[in-house]
Structure formats: structure tokens, C-alpha cells
């Protein structure tokens, strides 16, 4: 197989934060049967994602990243699950949504205080009850729908998603994308990408310009060769028995096909 080799000695089972990407770990939008839902991560999520300022930043990133696709005057259901929100925070969410002409209409929560705050602010409220231990489901969760973002993933930004992530823009050094599915960077990949984060080593990382700090697929880790690139092609990183390898994208499907017995 004519692959660009990534140094084989780097394929080491570094202790990765396994299964951290549960389906609710970051703010996300989901449309289902014609309604747009804004889903906040549960309070039980990893501490790195649970503070209000993190939630706020993730929301702004998602809104900016999907800028072109928001239809004016779409109503939004906020799925707050067990997250505690006060009136000011609800107002901040509504204002952020209003900036892209989305309307906050309904709030679904399992917390009494959040329900009271939402009702006071004039949203229709749906009280839910969390079934105990619901979060401890086995790892066989189906992938979420792909997350499409048009943005530069800058240093310090961390995108986590329980499906495939597509970024139209660069992944800069210091930025990280973690996906349970594939990662496609339509731009320069210079940061850290982790595909198949819940253990699926068949996942791929694709980029127009592959210059990663580090690539991770499932439990495999690799860093890029230290030699400077002379020519740049769109490339695809995948797991082989020898570890993570990079192939030229144009040859990838062919080589996969030819290597089949």
C-alpha cells in the first residue's frame, strides 16, 4: 500500500479519556420531526463541560459555526434536562438565539427551579423526570447525526460530538476535535483530531492539508512525521495492523478496494 508512513514507534496505547464523549457532553442542536431542539449537556457530564461559561461558549460556537443554515423565525425547544438555569441564563440563551433570528419557545427540564424560572420568563415549560442510571447505558449507542461547522477551530476550542464532525475551515494548533464517528476537515488540520473516540477503529480522519499535532483513532495515537511536507494533497488517516497510516485521498478508496482479499 502506498501510504505516507507515520512513525510506527508512536503507536502506543496512551491512556485516553475513554468513552468521555457521551451523546450529551456538549451543547448541540438537533432537528427532529420539524422541530429544532437545543440540547444542553447534563450536570453529570464531565466537569470540563459543566460550567455555565463553557455551555455559553459552546452555544456561541455552534450558532456561529452553523450561521448560514439557521432559518429565520424557527422556534427552538430548549432541552435543559437536569441543568440548573436561572432567569438571567435563560435570557442569555434566548438573546444568543435571537441574534441569528431563532426563537426560544419551550423549555424542557427536570429541575423545579429551572421550570419556575422558565415559566416566569414566559416560556412554555415541560417537566421531565430523569430515570435513574439512564446515563450509564452501554457503549453501543448509535451515532448522532453529523455535526457540520463552518468555523476555524482555534487554539483552546474543543469540539466534541457523538457522531461525525465536518469542519469547513482550519483546525488550528491547540484546537481539538473529538468525534465518535469520522472527522473531515475541509481545510488545514494542524491541531489534534480524535476519530472513533468511543472505540471504533474503522473511523477515518480526512483533511485537505494534513499537518496534525497528533492524530487519534479509537485507542491508537500517532504524531505526524517531523519532516516538512513538500507537497500537499488531501489525505486520509486510517488504522492498519501497523497503527495509524495516512494515504493520499485520491488513492484511498482504490487501495482499500485492492487490499480486500
Amino acid at each position, binding site marked *: 500500500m502506498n501510504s505516507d508512513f507515520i512513525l510506527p514507534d508512536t503507536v502506543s496505547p496512551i491512556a485516553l479519556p475513554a468513552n468521555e464523549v457521551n451523546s450529551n457532553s456538549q451543547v448541540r442542536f438537533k432537528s427532529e420531526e420539524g422541530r429544532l431542539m437545543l440540547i444542553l449537556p447534563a450536570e453529570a457530564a464531565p466537569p470540563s463541560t459543566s460550567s455555565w461559561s463553557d455551555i*455559553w*461558549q459552546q452555544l*456561541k*460556537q455552534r450558532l*456561529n459555526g452553523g450561521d448560514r443554515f439557521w432559518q429565520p423565525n424557527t422556534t427552538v425547544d430548549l432541552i435543559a434536562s437536569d441543568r440548573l438555569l436561572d432567569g438571567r441564563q435563560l435570557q442569555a440563551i434566548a438573546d444568543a438565539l435571537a*441574534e441569528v433570528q431563532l426563537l426560544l419557545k419551550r423549555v424542557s427540564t427536570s429541575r423545579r427551579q429551572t421550570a419556575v424560572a422558565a415559566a416566569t420568563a414566559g416560556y412554555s415549560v415541560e417537566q421531565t423526570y430523569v430515570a435513574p442510571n439512564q446515563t450509564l447505558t452501554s457503549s453501543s449507542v448509535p451515532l448522532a447525526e453529523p455535526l457540520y461547522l463552518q468555523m*476555524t477551530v*482555534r*487554539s*483552546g*476550542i474543543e469540539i466534541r460530538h457523538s457522531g461525525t464532525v465536518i469542519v469547513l*475551515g*482550519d483546525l*488550528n*494548533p*491547540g484546537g481539538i476535535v473529538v468525534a465518535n464517528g469520522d472527522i473531515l476537515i475541509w481545510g*488545514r488540520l*494542524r491541531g489534534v483530531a480524535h476519530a472513533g473516540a468511543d472505540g471504533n477503529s474503522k473511523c477515518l480522519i480526512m483533511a485537505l492539508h494534513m499537518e496534525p499535532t497528533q492524530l487519534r483513532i479509537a485507542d491508537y495515537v500517532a504524531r505526524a512525521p517531523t519532516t516538512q511536507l513538500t507537497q500537499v494533497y488531501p489525505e486520509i488517516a486510517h488504522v492498519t495492523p501497523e497503527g495509524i497510516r495516512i494515504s493520499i485521498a485520491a488513492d484511498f478508496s482504490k487501495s482499500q478496494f485492492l487490499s480486500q482479499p
Partner: protein
Amino acid sequence: MTRIIVTTSGKGGVGKTTTTANLGMALARLGRKVALVDADFGLRNLDLLLGLENRIVYTALEVLAGECRLEQALVKDKREPGLVLLPAAQNRNKEAVSPDQIQELVSALTDLYDYIVIDCPAGIEMGFKNAIAGAKEALIVTTPEIAAVRDADRVVGLLEAQGIKNIHLIVNRLRPTMVQVNDMMSVQDVQEILAIPLIGVVPEDERVIVSTNRGEPLVLAESPSLAGKAFDNIARRLEGQTVEFIDLYPTPDNFLSRLRKLLSSII
């Protein structure tokens, strides 16, 4: 319409305060009314660079505490009547003020001045959050070094998340000779990562040190330096003028280049 601009970088020592002082002075010389706000509580420097240290009576903290009026705290520049400085307190730290309070100060200055330029402290903690609270635009100052660019990138992300979308880039302390031999990142390399529009390139200049020590911004110098000229150009670009970027890579003046110049001027 008052333009409220924050000068920020993430990393320290890249030239935020120097940039703020020079841009403020240059804008004032263009006939604008400019208020410079030092948001670096506890480590204020802007007054030193402007040579206004010995005129400070009250600071932003006394204004917020209601111990004096805002006009009393504003230090007027003797050289340029259009320029004032709102000094930070030196005897406190960043936690002494909140973003709401800075916003309050900035809105009190709005409409009285054409430009409010806020000098942001290094870092992304409380001091940064304070400094960007009232801002509508940002100037990112970076040097052509990986660490500075990485931090600038982080700051751009934070600004965007705060809804500050009007962001321009200043590449400071560029050494053209080092860029030419590939020992330093070029402006293009920096721009490729940060992906924000460029508003100025300031070359490395020893006279910056002299001007800092004397408290006389470079743009005031009798014989203009290249760096001073670069700051002046940035001020003009902020004003909406189209100013050519200074050619920092002059071609050696030999017979061929003169002939080429002559030919192109004829054509």
C-alpha cells in the same frame, strides 16, 4: 459614533501597551478625540509610555467608588489636547473591578470621544474579561513567534464567542531580514493561522525602547522612524483611509531595478 476598540494579545510582552499609546497619539494627531483606558489593574504601564505618570491624581477605581467624578480622573495630554487617559489603579489587582463596572466606565465615556481604546492585560482571566466587556472591536497584537500566535489564536476564539467579530491583526516586531532567510514567521504565515484581516505590520525598532523610557510615543518623534510610520498608518487605516503597506523588503537599488522602475513608470 464612538468606536470602542480593545487592544489584546493573550501573550505578554508583544507590544499591546506600546501599540495602544502610539495609536492613541496618532489618532489624536489626526484631529480625533481619543480616550485611552488602562484596564491593566495592578500592573499599569500605559501612563508611563505616555509620560503621564506624574499627573495621575485619581484612577478608575475612585471613579467607580464615587470618590471623584469621571472628568477628574481623566488625565489630559499636554502635547495633544484631543487625548486623555483613564488610568488604572496600581495598588489593587484585577479582581478589584468587574466587567459590568468597566462597561459602566466605557459607556460614560461614549459620545464624548471619537475613539475609546482599551489596553488589555496579558492572559485570558479576569483582567481580559474586564477589558473586553465594553469593546465593540478588537486589535490583536502578535509577534511572529509560535507562542504569541498560538495565544492570539486562542484570544480570537474567545472574542468571537463574546460576539466581538470586528477583529484586526497587527504583526509587531517583525524582522524582515530574518524572514527573508526563513528564520522568522512571515506575515503570511501568521495570517494563515489566525485568518483575520491585517491592519498593520510594525518592524522591530530600537527606538521603541528609547521612546518607552522617555514617555514619548514614537509617532511624536521629529525624524519619523519606520515603526512610528507604521503606527501612524494603522491609525489612518482605522480612520478608513487606504494606506499602502510599507515595503519592508526594499530591493537593492542597482541599475536593473532603477531601469525596471523607469520602464514601469513609462508604461
